[in-house]
């Protein structure tokens, strides 16, 4: 791969990590969804560039799925949902934004150290892609842990899946079945989550998981 293609791929994967960090400090749900849509767009660009650089046309399909489903359909649907629920103003965080950002930076550093040390033998782009991908995965996990709101947990999970797609497309020649399955799983996951969110709304008039904790079958 020539130097220019490498630089662009590097730039896009790095941007994805940056956008993931941006997700961490969004304190309003609607802003969170907008940033997530942006992240999905960056992912689609990155996948499309991999398709071009690797000469793997099937990856364009993965990019198209990322763009249409994750950057457009899901954010729009979630926007409508939170407006109907009347919770588009706020995001409750279990811990403060300062420590969360620091933890996020720590996770990025960790994944760089781990992956770059482990994959010394692999080619340059693959290993850096992998390091970025692991960062995105870990940041998504962090978000799921720190947020209490069901919608932001879902966003955290989808951001995590974005990291997985980055990893899968970075691994050159990875069988197509996996990419499709990832895209599919997101779709299925969204349907499932959608069903659950609606049921939760019906039952509790709230999507705050803390409200759910009270209903545990046994007291602790």
């Amino acid at each position, binding site marked *: 791969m020539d130097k220019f293609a490498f630089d662009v791929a590097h730039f896009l994967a790095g941007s994805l990590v940056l956008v993931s960090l941006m997700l961490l400090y969004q304190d309003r749900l609607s802003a969170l969804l907008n940033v997530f849509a942006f992240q999905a767009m960056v992912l689609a660009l990155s996948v499309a560039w991999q398709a071009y650089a690797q000469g793997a046309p099937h990856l364009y399909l993965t990019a198209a799925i990322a763009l249409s489903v994750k950057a457009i359909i899901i954010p729009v649907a979630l926007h409508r949902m939170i407006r109907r629920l009347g919770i588009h103003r706020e995001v409750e965080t279990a811990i403060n934004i300062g420590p969360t950002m620091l933890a996020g930076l720590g996770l990025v550093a960790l994944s760089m150290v781990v992956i770059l040390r482990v994959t010394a033998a692999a080619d340059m782009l693959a290993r850096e892609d*992998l390091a970025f991908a692991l960062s995105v995965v870990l940041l998504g*996990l962090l978000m799921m842990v720190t947020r209490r709101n069901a919608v932001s947990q879902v966003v955290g999970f989808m951001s995590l899946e974005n*990291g997985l797609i980055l*990893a899968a497309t970075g*691994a050159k020649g*990875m*069988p197509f079945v996996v990419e499709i399955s990832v895209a599919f799983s997101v779709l299925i996951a969204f349907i499932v989550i959608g069903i659950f969110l609606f049921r939760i709304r019906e039952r509790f008039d709230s999507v705050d998981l803390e409200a759910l904790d009270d*209903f545990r*079958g046994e007291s602790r």
Partner: protein
Amino acid sequence: MPTSGEGLILAIPLVTAALLIFISNYRLSARLNAASAFLTLLAALSLFVRKPAPGPYLLVDDLNIVFVVLNTFVGFTTAVFSASYIAHELETGRLTRAQLRFYHAMYQILLFAMSLSLLANNIGLMWVAIELATLTTVLMVGIYRTHEALEAAWKYFILGSVGIALALFGTILVYMAARPVVGEGPDGMVWTILIEHAAKLDPALLNLAFIFLLLGYGTKVGLAPLHAWLPDAHAEGPTPISAVLSGLLLNVALHAVLRFKLLLAANPGAIAPGPLLVTMGLVSLIFAGFMLYRRRDIKRLFAYSSIEHMGIIAFAFGMGGPLANFAGLLHMTMHSLTKSGIFFAVGHIAQAKDTQKIAEIRGLTVSHPLLGWGLVVGVAAIAGMPPLGVFMSEFLVVSSTFAREPLLAIPLVIGLLVAFGALLLKVHGLAFGEPTGVSHPVKASYLPMIAHFGLVLVAGLYLPPPLVAWFQHVAVLLH
């Protein structure tokens, strides 16, 4: 139409699921469900007779035949139990007819997904199958739509998805490790090709991959500290699903971990995966053993007991070697049979007493003799009392550990004793004394429960030599 055994194992549940969606008569669909599960069991047994050659997607080897046969057998008995269980749920209005249609179709899809994961010769396909199994069980756990059921399903979904995402990352890392050796494309994910070239794969990448796979699939096995979803999911879903979760799905995830453990074992430069499994197993065993004392819900009690036993099994496979692996395989089989048998009893008990609270259930041996004594036998078996099968497998685990690592045997025995005490304490209150509270007569089919406990008893007294030989052979394969 596939005519081979492994094709039928996958095709029968799929076709049945498609049919079940359209059948609104619940008696008919419950019967069809059981009949189809029986046919699947027959197809699984045919694998002993004629073992097909591994293809690019499916594989039948000596290891997964054990899992597949156990899976289809418990799948069949649970379907029989389910038929009598759901009739009661329909009468009391906890489930509607439409929900039942959905339930039966999902049950078959779950059986399909579990068999696919066990038979997959492609680590990507294996991942997809486990994800499908997770999603179907999430939907089933939430089927009652109560607060508790929704919370349990949500928790299971979130934790299960994180686990499954970590496992996918691990799968991608395995492919990255394989790519320089076996080349680009589908071959890099085919299990038989991977294991053939295992010694040449990059050990550092494999180590990292295994950590992710262990954390990911370990969540689904229910190993502590990744077990948080398991008690809720067991307690709030329909009891047949608790039986399938405990008896089968945990094994399916364990099978995936074992496959990757084999891959690492075949690579001289990689870390030894054993100590990791041993540690997680011991932590699960001791933690769950103590947690058993504080349970107030009968299904949660046995869910924690499942964590305990998966800990013992992971410990045994982590120790490795022919004897410990043999003990692990035997214990896995015994646990599946006993635990699902207990859930059959518990399902009818909860229906007879209208509650799952341990404090409100007393004197079952007086009010419902067959159920009460069934529960006593089941708990005696799962606690490891001789002469039942679990005693024998636990004895083998302990004695093989004493022979090799006496120090590790101490926490193992402590954990077993702690759990033993807790279970006897709880079952004493449940089964004996004056019956209290509401008490409905039950129209139960006791046959599945009796069949399971009967098998466990027979296995404790006499293991047929061909079975022993088979398990020994597999134990050697597992290193």
